[in-house]
């Protein structure tokens, strides 16, 4: 696929890295010659220096042949105009824009982003998605990752197993027999850094970090079985009062179960703005790394600290310091995926990676077949793919055990009509079913092939 990415900043760069890595023909456009040069040197992409929305620049970037354009410059308005130009002059079929201003995001429901108005197919808002992810982590404090699928009827849970986990050293096959009514499947295991799809004879060990697909009604039971009791989050400290921190604090205030939130922001003006925007939250002006300030925020008794400043290293260190001071749990925002392996060493309980959520919403439009959602796991090491089974596809009408899935692929759940069922070898996949698949990156092309329709699909 030929893809043009406008803006080689944090978001554009990560998207370019991912898409070029999947053998797409990627061209990056940015005003900054240094960034463009760096992108074409380090990533397998072509670079064009210029103003993204200018027709001559887009022409040079190959817009006439492009299948997709992703506008991820720092300006909402440039992103909007770029999509319009790509549509009107170059008939680029798919246009994705990054928009940050709340007001533009609210306009989404007002039919603004339609072909005959402002032609943007997908609006991505990393800040909003990060805030969402942060809330999910707080809601499921005993998981290091969690994401909803199948219209909220199934949940992906990332669980770090410790020595107290009651089901260690037992083959997974046996677990299925022991808990025959439990609608949950272990789809991925990370052991000593390596992620793999477990086989029925595999056992789980302490220190494993596992991914489980569970029916929404069985989430509590699933967590219990893997040794994680439900916990209440009553006191939360948010460090960083930017867009993300503010959005998180606002959402926490709106929750019915009263959560006490303290927000720490270094910049005085921003701290004051946050204090105005929030009602019950106590805003403290100062450095989140400062022990005295953390003590003032009552870190000792806090259930969770959420470090969401714009600096990865600050977020890591704040998390460590808060844990050391007695906070029960820490969650850090981390942009650089190479820092993720440090989490375990630093005893940080969960992390949020804005790239993963953003890349996920873009990948959905790249994959063949009728893909409804994609969630990228770890440093793009695997994907959870939610897709509708179409007639004539190689899996339609076949039993799960008859399907020639590659070794790195597992079926996590199947939705028939509105009913989510736990898959087993004897389950027949039918046209119209929605399947939730875990696939290691190397096996994604084969999964795509299995989801594609055959030539007779007319």
């Amino acid at each position: 696929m030929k893809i043009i990415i406008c803006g080689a900043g944090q978001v554009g760069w990560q998207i370019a890295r991912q898409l070029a890595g999947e053998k797409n023909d990627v061209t990056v456009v940015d005003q900054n010659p240094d960034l463009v040069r760096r992108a074409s040197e380090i990533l397998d992409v072509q670079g064009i220096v210029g103003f993204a929305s200018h027709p001559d620049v887009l022409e040079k970037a190959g817009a006439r042949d492009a299948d997709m354009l992703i506008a991820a410059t720092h300006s909402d308005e440039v992103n909007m105009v770029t999509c319009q130009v790509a549509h009107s002059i170059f008939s680029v079929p798919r246009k994705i824009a990054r928009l940050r201003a709340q007001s533009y995001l609210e306009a989404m429901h007002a039919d603004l982003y339609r072909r005959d108005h402002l032609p943007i197919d997908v609006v991505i808002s990393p800040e909003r998605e990060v805030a969402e992810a942060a809330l999910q982590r707080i809601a499921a404090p005993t998981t290091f990752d969690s994401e909803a699928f199948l219209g909220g009827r199934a949940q992906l849970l990332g669980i770090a197993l410790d020595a107290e986990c009651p089901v260690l050293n037992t083959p997974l096959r046996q677990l299925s027999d022991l808990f025959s009514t439990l609608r949950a499947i272990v789809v991925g295991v990370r052991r000593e850094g390596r992620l793999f799809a477990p086989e029925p004879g595999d056992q789980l060990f302490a220190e494993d970090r596992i991914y489980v697909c569970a029916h929404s009604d069985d989430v509590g039971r699933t967590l219990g079985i893997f040794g994680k009791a439900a916990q209440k989050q009553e006191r939360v400290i948010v460090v960083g009062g930017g867009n993300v921190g503010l959005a998180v604090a606002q959402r926490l205030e709106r929750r019915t179960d009263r959560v006490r939130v303290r927000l720490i922001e270094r910049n005085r003006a921003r701290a004051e703005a946050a204090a105005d925007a929030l009602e019950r939250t106590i805003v403290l002006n100062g450095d989140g790394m400062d022990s005295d300030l953390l003590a003032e925020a009552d870190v000792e008794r806090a259930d969770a600290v959420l470090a969401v400043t714009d600096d990865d290293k600050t977020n890591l260190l704040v998390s460590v310091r808060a844990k050391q001071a007695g906070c029960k749990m820490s969650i850090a925002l981390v942009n650089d995926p190479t820092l993720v392996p440090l989490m375990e060493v630093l005893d940080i309980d969960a992390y949020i990676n804005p790239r993963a959520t953003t890349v996920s919403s873009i990948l959905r439009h790249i994959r063949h077949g009728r893909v409804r959602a994609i969630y990228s796991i770890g440093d793009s090491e695997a994907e959870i793919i939610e897709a509708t089974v179409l007639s004539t596809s190689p899996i339609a009408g076949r039993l799960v055990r008859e399907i020639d899935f590659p070794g790195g692929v597992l079926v996590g759940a199947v939705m028939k009509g509105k009913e989510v069922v736990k898959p087993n070898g004897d389950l027949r996949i039918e046209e119209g079913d929605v399947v939730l698949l875990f696939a290691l990156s190397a096996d994604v092309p084969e999964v795509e092939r299995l989801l594609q329709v055959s030539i007779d699909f007319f």
Partner: protein
Amino acid sequence: MDISLILQPGAVRVLGKAGSKKRLFQELGEIAAAVHGIDAGQVIDGLQERESLGPTGVGHGIALPHARLETLERIVGIFVRLEKPMDFDAVDRQPVDLIFTLLAPKDSGVEHLKTLALVSRTMRDGAVCTKLRANTNPATLHAILIEASARQAA
């Protein structure tokens, strides 16, 4: 049923090259508009949408893109030979130079599937493809296709 009913001589073209699937579909849209008076945009969207569900490159340099369109009244075909083969994500990963496009009405029962099967059988004949690749005159290409499909139908 034979191909002469759906393939008009004017809908057989020889093109130098197509830079991408997108450009090819745009060409096909324009041919459909010129020969059959169908809205080009609708054709392009339809073909692109179908292609995104699974590529229509069937191997051996042949692609059979197809789509069903709201406003169409009968099945129509377009044949394009490319002088320079193009990448098409085909099943055998080989570039494609013979492209037989089918456009069908939304409610065509099973007629469109029969037509697709006939076109597919016709194009699977290696001798026919060799002949198609050896000629550049659209009228000759049209005659080769009609003659070959008549043999298939018989």
